[in-house]
């Protein structure tokens, strides 16, 4: 009953609890391995947010996560468990990189939008299959989208080791994109780029769409109760398909932005699993725009601080991975609780 009386407070606690638990678990592991938890967390905080350059590094790391989190959220809120953003990210990155060097003599104002739209379209098309299968035949989208990830990663790996391999390169990488295709940097010499602003704007737009538009409301109702939606005349299967493709578009765009904004080419290991981290971010943020932004920044902070804190301590990267893993587990646990409650209601 207390939960019902204080919904806002409970929601905030719901978002913060997984982090708090992860911090506690991290502290136990640190103490057990002979590190001083408070000192390590202090270093972590200063490497994540201590000064303009570190904040920029954290926001750069958060950029792909904002969009993969968004890609997951638009699907989840309609009751579609799309786990295929990782594959879309790879394909979108590859398409944007190829357009970025193939159309290198185009002016930036044309080249960048064309490359990004191309990346988004490929991501969207990639999920048409799972979308149709789910909408028409009820085929489990978790299986289809997960499998498509493997195909996308292997396909891009083959392309970058074969037809698209840069001349003279010993390792798997395409040629670099043209300078005109690079997204502008916001705070040189840091790596923070325009892609962060684009991503943030899209998440904000999603927040408005989901709250204030009919389509946004409908897609949520479908996610909450498909049978009820059908009963009140909402076309459920077309909503499923639309949200799946929208999720793919966003996943592809995320990869395109990552290629044009940061990596400046497509290379083997293009994503360390941004698509999967996006799932945790959407779950943690309860599909809300603000939740996605906060969760993406926290994961970005763990990533940026996790790397550079090794310069100043003997804390291995594994501690950060343990914390990320713990956050994900608790985020999912939270999700299960929410679902169960929703089902009873």
């Amino acid at each position: 009953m207390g939960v019902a009386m204080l919904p806002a407070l409970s929601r905030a606690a719901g978002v913060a609890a997984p982090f708090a638990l992860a911090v506690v678990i991290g502290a136990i592991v640190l103490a057990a391995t002979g590190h001083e938890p408070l000192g390590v967390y202090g270093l972590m905080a200063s490497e994540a947010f201590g000064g303009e350059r570190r904040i920029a590094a954290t926001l750069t790391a958060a950029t792909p996560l904002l969009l993969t989190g968004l890609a997951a959220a638009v699907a989840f809120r309609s009751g579609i468990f799309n786990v295929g953003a990782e594959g879309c990210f790879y394909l979108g990155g590859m398409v944007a990189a190829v357009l970025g060097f193939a159309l290198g003599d185009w002016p930036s104002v044309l080249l960048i939008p064309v490359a990004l739209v191309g990346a988004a379209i490929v991501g969207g098309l990639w999920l048409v299959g799972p979308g149709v299968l789910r909408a028409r035949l009820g085929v489990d989208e978790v299986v289809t989208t997960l499998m498509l990830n493997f195909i996308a990663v292997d396909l891009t790996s083959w392309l970058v080791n074969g037809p698209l391999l840069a001349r003279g390169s010993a390792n798997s990488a395409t040629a670099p994109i043209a300078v005109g295709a690079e997204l502008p940097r916001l705070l040189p010499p840091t790596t923070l780029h325009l892609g962060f602003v684009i991503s943030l704007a899209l998440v904000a737009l999603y927040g408005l769409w989901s709250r204030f538009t009919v389509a946004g409301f409908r897609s949520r109702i479908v996610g909450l109760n498909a049978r009820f939606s059908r009963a009140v005349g909402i076309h459920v299967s077309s909503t499923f398909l639309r949200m799946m493709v929208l999720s793919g578009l966003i996943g592809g765009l995320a990869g395109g932005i990552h290629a044009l904004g940061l990596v400046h080419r497509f290379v083997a290991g293009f994503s360390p699993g941004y698509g999967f981290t996006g799932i945790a971010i959407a779950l943690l943020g309860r599909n809300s725009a603000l939740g996605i932004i906060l969760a993406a920044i926290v994961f970005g902070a763990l990533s940026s601080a996790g790397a550079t804190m090794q310069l100043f301590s003997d804390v291995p990267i594994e501690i950060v991975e343990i914390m990320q893993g713990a956050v994900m587990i608790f985020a999912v646990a939270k999700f299960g609780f929410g679902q169960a409650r929703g089902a009873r209601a």
Partner: protein
Amino acid sequence: MSTALAAEKPVALIIAQGGLGDQSYNDLAYAGFKKAVAEAKLEGKPVESKDVVAQAADILRRASDAGFGLVVDLEYSHGDALATVAKDYAGTDYVILNQVKPGANVASVLFQEQEGSYLAGALAALVATDTSVKGMNGKPIIGVIGGTKSVGIDKFIVGYIQGARDMNPKVEVKVAYSNNFGDPAIGLQMAKAMYDGGANVVYQVAGGTGLGVIQAAKETGHYAIGVDTDQDGVAPGAVLTSMIKRTDVAVETVVKDYAAGKFPGGKTVTLGLAEDGVGLSPMKYTHDLIPAATLTKIESVKKDILSGKIKVWNVVDQGYPDFFK
């Protein structure tokens, strides 16, 4: 690069994709790094990240801002970012491996993989026609599987073919590319096809895919040749030898040079047979299978390469030779 001060600054090693514990490139480099750091009494930090591709400039700049004197970067995709960052930090030295990048404070390290591969090819051709070696069919047929069709990989392959042809002009070298560095199943299939086609020895230049080549050798009773690290122990007796790339020697050398105030900034350091940067494994499990005369022959070939009597073709510098277009 003022020597007295430089040596007091800490040094960093950026670990490539795959991370520490790969029992290969990264672990080998880190071993050399630790050794040099301990001997030179420097403070040295390894930096690992799952997100290493995306964090190139961020990690390099952070280390430079924090006053690190030397940053050795193992990640191949960091080349361009490293060259850019190096321009902004004249007080920090940088090392990049397996590629050449410009900058007065940048040292590039290249390996003469073709030289070690030449020895591997020579040995393979000699044993293939020697039926006294268990499992050989006596036909002059050997093979090589590359991870991708690129000059970086063909550098190994051409050296291997040249070594084999110089021992036996009639040798047939089957060449194939897996277009994948991480799939042992593909390596297994491709190698089995080569062994079915009569190949006695198959050289793998395909990273993780190559583990399947070794597996195929073990399953079919033929031989594989390992690459990069000493892979003889992966399937004892089935790996004829390994063409070792001494990344540990490379990292150890540049860190020590840095500590001694002799950092080779702006230069390309090449490590070949002469520097012990490449070479064949000690053949712990196959040494006794191979006739002593064959091993003596390989030793004399090595001496001829060192003396310059044999010139091994370098695809990266010379383009493709007539015998391999």
